[in-house]
């Protein structure tokens, strides 16, 4: 089926919801690569979907049992996305923002390659549609921020896989590549001594790739301490006041943002 040259709003939404047949999907992807306005509209739909999800993230819990901290966490998650949306959709340089699913190091490697070639490769947008990633089109793709906000072991491994893949690529082909892993909320466990399931791997990564930067959110650490738990970070982990500020600052400097 050949799409109407002026894709309807229904079709744009169907694209974002992955409801289009493969042929129509590819056609719209190709069109989006040549049409900044269409890209922006698809980006906005995807961003709105994310905002709605975040706003009800913890609403399944009982009201009585729901703690203020939980509300703050949901608010923080939504605020981060809100900030990202603001940067993403208000500025003109953003190309896409979609849903991240766990990927292998190989997949992330492909993503990096695709990100560098977004304008020329229609398939890159297909990859983006499966992954939560924000790419500043005009900026360098030599700086990547990986964001971890859950304690799901698969998420933690996924972030480290991605970082390792990128750093390996940097050592081979892109010596200027900068990579940061920022952990907040429950993701702070990734960097906690005596808690992190990946402590040995992190130590090996830091030793092998000194330029890899690991960052913990002070605010999240404070919340853990409020519960009476001590927080000791692994060697080599830096602290910032809030992950949100770090992410926004990096986005404004043109970093690629990926949330696991």
């Amino acid at each position, binding site marked *: 089926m050949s799409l109407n040259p002026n894709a309807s709003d229904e079709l744009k939404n169907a694209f974002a919801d992955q409801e289009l047949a493969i042929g129509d999907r590819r056609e719209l992807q190709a069109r989006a690569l040549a049409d900044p306005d269409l890209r922006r509209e698809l980006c906005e739909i995807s961003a*709105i979907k994310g905002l709605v999800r975040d706003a*009800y993230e913890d*609403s399944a819990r009982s009201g009585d049992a729901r703690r203020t901290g939980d509300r703050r966490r949901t608010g923080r998650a939504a605020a981060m996305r809100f900030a990202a949306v*603001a940067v993403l959709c208000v500025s003109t340089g953003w190309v896409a923002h979609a849903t991240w699913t766990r990927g292998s190091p190989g997949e992330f490697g492909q993503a990096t390659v695709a990100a560098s070639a977004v304008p020329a490769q229609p398939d890159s947008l297909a990859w983006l549609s499966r992954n939560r990633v924000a790419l500043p089109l005009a900026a360098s793709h030599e700086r990547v921020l990986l964001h971890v906000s859950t304690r799901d072991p698969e998420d933690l491994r996924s972030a480290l896989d991605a970082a390792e893949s990128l750093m390996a690529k940097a050592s081979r082909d892109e010596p200027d590549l900068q990579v940061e892993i920022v952990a907040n909320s429950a993701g702070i466990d990734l960097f906690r001594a005596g808690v992190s399931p990946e402590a040995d791997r992190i130590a090996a990564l830091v030793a092998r790739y000194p330029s890899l930067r690991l960052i913990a959110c002070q605010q999240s650490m404070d919340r853990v301490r409020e519960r009476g738990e001590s927080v000791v970070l692994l060697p080599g982990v830096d602290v910032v006041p809030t992950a949100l500020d770090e992410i926004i*600052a990096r986005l404004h400097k043109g970093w690629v943002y990926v949330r696991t």
Partner: protein
Amino acid sequence: MNLHIPFLPSYGLRARLDEHRPSMVRVAFSWCHDRALAEDLVQDALVKALGQAGSLRDATKLKAWLFVILGNCFRDHLRRRRPHEDIDALDEEVLSGGLRPDDAHEQAEVVRRVRAAIASLPLGQRQTVTLVDLEGFGYAEVAGILDIPVGTVMSRLSRGRQALRALLLETAAENTEPALRSVK
């Protein structure tokens, strides 16, 4: 809150229903923005599901079937409370009671704004958007749950998200000023 179900035809079924309870509460809350009401609606829906378990012919469609029942419970609730009033108008009344000033102070401002934007949508658009975005239902599944054509699902999504875009991205633009700070 634990379920207190008087008649349990199958422990396995009950366990499977319970797995879907958080999703149902989340969606019910997004429809009515009243936590106690959402819990009650889900409780009603799960009890009805247990009583009607024999009518579920395809076990793979359990989740969609549960949301059909939840949707019916919500509409029944709206009709019961004010049988002579317009359902959509009544629904807005329920919503206005759900977003209390106290909640607004306790919740993050952004979450409040997003929820308020969702609450401002007409009921049909609100249900469609939340079923797709919160639970990832496909268009055909949503059509089945709400008993509407797929084309209506698409038009409701389009109109609903256009309204959300106007409300939320304008807000986002107001909050774009970056708070850059140096990293330790």
